[in-house]
């Protein structure tokens, strides 16, 4: 008896729910199956996307016993926090985190300031050699870094910049460096999609060209700028290639460039011998330690992205990345 009373009330509750309202508003009965299929499809694909991440997080909490125990698959018996303390030590976390934060912060700032400046010139002005210059920007995107790596290295060696952060930072001022051409292209695209009327009004009111750019054009595209900030942040943070070429001192490397060391310690352990670095840290590098190290490296990006996510998606929706 009790049940039959409760059920209609429960149904009424459900009807007020957001999900139910959405279903009843959007779907005829046949369409439910289509939507259901979409959900299942998205979930299966999402699982494949998330799996490596879950695997990493779970393995990072496993002790060596848990790792080789086949009965322990998803839920480790205990949280093995030593993995994290070893990984923290091996990565030299505080120092290299600060280096990474500095390089990423400088990279993002320079990308947004310099590439928007250059991109604005390409979007709004006509001048001699513009097409040729833009072709150069496209060419620099297409060309693999390795083609011109040696001459670039020689330039920086001649300037005695190798072993400092200058080779990573200075080219960025001039629109080069990590994917510089791509960012110029993106900013050009943003400004092309922006109606010129606002800037024209500013010009009539007596704004100079630089002031128009800085005070009117750039603030107007700020939703799109968030997109470039996120992209630049992720790329700069994860970049390990150029830093490991120009910085010959291990003490100066950014965080992701420390990962190969941990990986090497792990590999050598797998080969049977305990690596010198591993024993220095007083640790056995298990797969758990390796995964903990990876997690520590990617964690800052995940945290910052969590804060920027909403703005980022707004930026994606509003900015015309393509077109033309």
């Amino acid at each position, binding site marked *: 008896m009790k049940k039959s009373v409760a059920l209609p009330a429960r149904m009424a509750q459900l009807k007020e729910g957001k999900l139910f309202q959405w279903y009843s508003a959007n779907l005829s009965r046949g369409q439910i199956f289509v939507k259901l299929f979409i959900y299942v499809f998205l979930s299966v694909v999402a699982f494949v996307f998330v799996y490596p991440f879950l695997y990493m997080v779970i393995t990072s909490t496993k002790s060596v016993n848990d790792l080789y125990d086949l009965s322990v698959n998803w839920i480790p018996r205990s949280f093995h926090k030593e993995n994290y303390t070893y990984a923290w030590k091996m990565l030299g976390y505080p120092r290299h985190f600060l280096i990474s934060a500095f390089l990423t912060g400088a990279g993002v700032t320079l990308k947004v300031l310099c590439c928007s*400046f250059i991109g604005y010139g390409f979007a709004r*002005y006509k001048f001699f050699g513009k097409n040729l*210059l833009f072709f150069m920007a496209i060419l620099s995107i297409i060309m*693999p870094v390795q083609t011109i790596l040696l001459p670039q290295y020689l330039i920086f060696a001649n300037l005695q910049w190798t072993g400092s952060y200058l080779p990573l930072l200075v080219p960025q001022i001039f629109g080069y460096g990590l994917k510089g051409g791509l960012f110029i292209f993106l900013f050009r695209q943003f400004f092309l999609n922006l109606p010129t009327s606002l800037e024209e009004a500013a010009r009539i009111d007596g704004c100079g060209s630089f002031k128009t750019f800085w005070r009117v054009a750039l603030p107007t595209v700020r939703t799109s700028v968030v997109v470039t900030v996120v992209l630049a942040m992720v790329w700069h943070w994860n970049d390990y290639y150029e830093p490991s070429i120009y910085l010959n001192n291990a003490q100066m490397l950014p965080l*992701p*460039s420390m990962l190969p060391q941990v990986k090497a310690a792990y590999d050598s352990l797998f080969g049977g011998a305990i690596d010198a670095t591993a024993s220095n840290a007083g640790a056995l590098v298990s797969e758990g330690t390796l995964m903990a190290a990876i997690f520590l490296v990617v964690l800052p990006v995940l945290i910052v992205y969590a804060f920027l996510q909403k703005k980022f998606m707004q930026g994606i929706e509003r900015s015309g990345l393509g077109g033309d």
Partner: protein
Amino acid sequence: MRTRATKTQRRKALEGFMFVSPFVVGTLAFFLYPVIFSLYISFGEYTIVKEASTFEFLGWANYLNAFVEDTTFTTIFKTVVTDSLINTPLIVVFSLIIAIFLNKNFPGRGFFRTVYFLPFLLGTGYVMSILLGMDVGEEAMNMARGILLPEGVREYLGTTFTAMVETFLGRITYVFWRSGVPIILFLSGLQNINVSLYESAKVDGATEWEMLWKITLPMVSPIMLLVIVYVVIDSFSDTGNAMVTYFFEQAFRKQDFSYSAAISWIYFAFILLFVGLIFAVMKGFIHSEQSEPRRKKVRT
């Protein structure tokens, strides 16, 4: 009157030049000089011994060697090219499908959007190569395979077919992990399609399927070109790519700078040709931005 016009024009050109002037400096110092240098040394033998460099001109020798003597180069080149040729359309189609789904309004959309962007956050650098190198990706596929293809069905279908399916699934993991940015690009493109187009089509009695082919795909085609070019370049110039590591090995491990330059130029020429081809082929399919708004105005 005429002189004044040219005067303001000249002033505008000067202002424009001011904006791109950093890029001009950068192009000369960090791009054009290295490019010419690298092209120059590829036609000879460049050596550095104790700060002093020597150069001996050899003509096309390095380029010939790449095809005649070095069997490693041609094999790596072939696999990288075929891999890219197969992966690119898969990534483009897959990310377009996901983007179309994610563009619909449904509960939990935000969650899925974050999930599909996760590989990009994790995986643009060394992390991805470790995770994929530890067969974590394949393990994921093994589990997903159980969902998609139950064991009984696989046995029933026979080994050749399942082997085919499995290589396909293995490839798909790679495709998934590469499609973060393409999904984002497509989402942005889909958001920019004018909603009134769909509304008027609905009034005319068009089905969802028809709208997909007649509205969504034509309107998203400019982005499609951008995505294709992005994916091609991304897969060709990825630092974990076998070809690219081979250049690095030749130059910095074997100290054969000239040969490394030569093969990287062959590779670059191929990419350039390939991208040019894509532009030429896609030109006919791209919906031009100019014609559509005018037609829309006439209709409404």
